[in-house]
């Protein structure tokens, strides 16, 4: 958080300033939509390693960070990419190979954990997962938890309702708050002070943003400060939560950004193909992440025609009739 007014930065600087080796990071978006991909690629380019990543249902961003070896620990509810990869491929390989440690929660639990962090309370209750292995099995050992002040001692706590029977509830599960060192989200509009407007579904981005010690926002459109304040009902995140505003058009590509562009089925299929093989994955990284050096260069590499095909139809917010086979 930063109460000041001008937070505009270049992406390279924002990532170098706020994402450090070992940082506890969360990224916004959901599977194939509004992932902060420009920031993800910049983290990969800067070779920042040993990150502890928090996501709920993340697909592309999470999988690329794992694929590039940036992640050592992961707390997650769902690692999938819709029809493009029912389980994310580099995620699957890393878990099976034991190269990352994983703690499993549900989508609602991860969202409540961010909400608790944003509210400044240590936990929130839910009835989700009672009787299941989400409660019984821990991915992070007790010892590992005790050894880290940045991780709570317990994964989850089952708890009798102290308001006996109130709300027809006998038991709840308490989920511990998350306060990431840094959250990165991609939004449609932000102003120079950091006020943010998300169009379409917000997923858990607002909670992830407000739970974080530092917040980096990448945006499609950088607005003057007065512009967003004119219809402030549509602003979900006030500027005081934000540390850096980075203007990155197409910053969610190859995932979608509602009202701006669709996900790129060709890229996502190409990615899935490459992800299946380690050598091919290295070739993918070289060609699409390391060589372009900036997100703009990646977009240029795709070509204007390819990008034009993804442009959102203003009525529906997505690319109607896009070839998605």
């Amino acid at each position, binding site marked *: 958080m930063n109460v000041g007014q001008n937070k505009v930065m270049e992406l390279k600087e924002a990532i170098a300033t706020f994402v450090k080796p070992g940082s506890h990071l969360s990224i916004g978006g959901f599977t194939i939509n509004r992932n902060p991909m420009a920031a993800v690629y910049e983290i990969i380019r800067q070779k920042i390693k040993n990150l502890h990543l928090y996501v709920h249902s993340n697909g592309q961003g999470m999988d690329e960070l794992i694929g590039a070896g940036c992640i050592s620990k992961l707390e997650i509810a769902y690692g999938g990419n819709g029809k493009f990869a029912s389980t994310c491929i580099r995620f699957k390989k890393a878990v099976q190979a034991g190269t990352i440690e994983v703690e499993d929660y549900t989508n609602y639990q991860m969202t409540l954990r961010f909400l608790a962090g944003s509210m400044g309370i240590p936990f929130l209750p839910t009835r989700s997962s009672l009787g*299941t292995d989400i409660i019984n099995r821990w991915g992070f050992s007790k010892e590992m938890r005790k050894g880290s002040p940045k991780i709570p001692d317990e994964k989850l706590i089952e708890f009798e309702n102290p308001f006996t029977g109130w709300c027809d509830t006998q038991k709840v599960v308490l989920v511990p708050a998350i306060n990431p060192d840094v959250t990165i989200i991609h939004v449609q509009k932000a102003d120079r002070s950091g006020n943010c407007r998300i169009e379409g579904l917000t997923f858990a981005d607002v909670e992830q943003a407000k739970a974080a010690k530092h917040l980096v926002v990448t945006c499609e459109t950088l607005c003057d400060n007065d512009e967003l304040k004119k219809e402030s009902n549509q602003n979900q995140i006030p500027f005081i939560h934000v540390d850096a505003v980075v203007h990155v058009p197409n910053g969610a590509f190859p995932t979608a950004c509602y009202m701006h562009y669709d*996900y790129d089925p060709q890229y996502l299929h190409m990615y899935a193909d490459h992800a299946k093989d380690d050598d091919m994955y290295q070739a993918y990284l070289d060609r699409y992440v390391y060589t372009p050096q900036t997100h703009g260069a990646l977009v240029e590499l795709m070509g204007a025609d390819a990008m034009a095909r993804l442009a959102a139809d203003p009525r529906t917010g997505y690319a109607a009739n896009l070839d998605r086979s």
Partner: protein
Amino acid sequence: MEYTLKEMMTIVAARQIQDLDIVFCGTGISMLAAMAAKKINAPESVIFFETGAIDSRLEEIPMAVADSRVMFHTSSNGGLLDAFATMQNKITGDHVIGILGAAQIDKFGNLNSTVIGDYDHPKTRFSGSGGGCDVASFVPKSLIFMQQERRKFVKKLDYLTSPGYLDGPDGRTNAGLSRGGPMMVITNMGTMGFDDTTKEMYLSGYYPGITPEQILEKMEFSVDVSRAGEVAPPTAEELRILREECDPQGLIL
């Protein structure tokens, strides 16, 4: 009229949805079943997604529950907090029907969508719960899509991701969950229900050309087949709507 098993599964699920049901949808066939129900037999059902979209106008099939296509012409575009609260809050949650899938199921309808093998050193890792465990915990009834395979209908799950009836009739109540639980399993060969008293799975239907015995062969545990009857195939009109109005691009079917 010719039809595929996927079409059969979709129509069987769609028939379970009624007017005024709020339908929780996942990706793929579950979304298609909800779309088909709305166009065929339950025009006043409401589709909603864990991502926060409710009553979307689905002019094209979404490829994920976060697809921008679910954000168009909704009643509101909220987020995950809104969606799951709609299910956990019994005032609205009691009207929700969930549609789920999994890698493994046991006789009490518990689901595994996390790992095959040892949790700490898994042979196969799947996507994980996502909202599946939340939905299964909260809603009074759900439909489960499964492929009919021995390694999927197992005596013991490798990991219990989403609660069915847990260990039997009092399982959910003892665990602190609301009543409810799965109502039907829909496979590529037939349908299973859960006995009102024992909460154990039984065969309720088999598709034309399939026998109960063939289904039992594709399960690690056996179930009662005495209540099973042949499931009516999709009608020409059901198929027309499904193919022409729901998935004209053939993205799911």
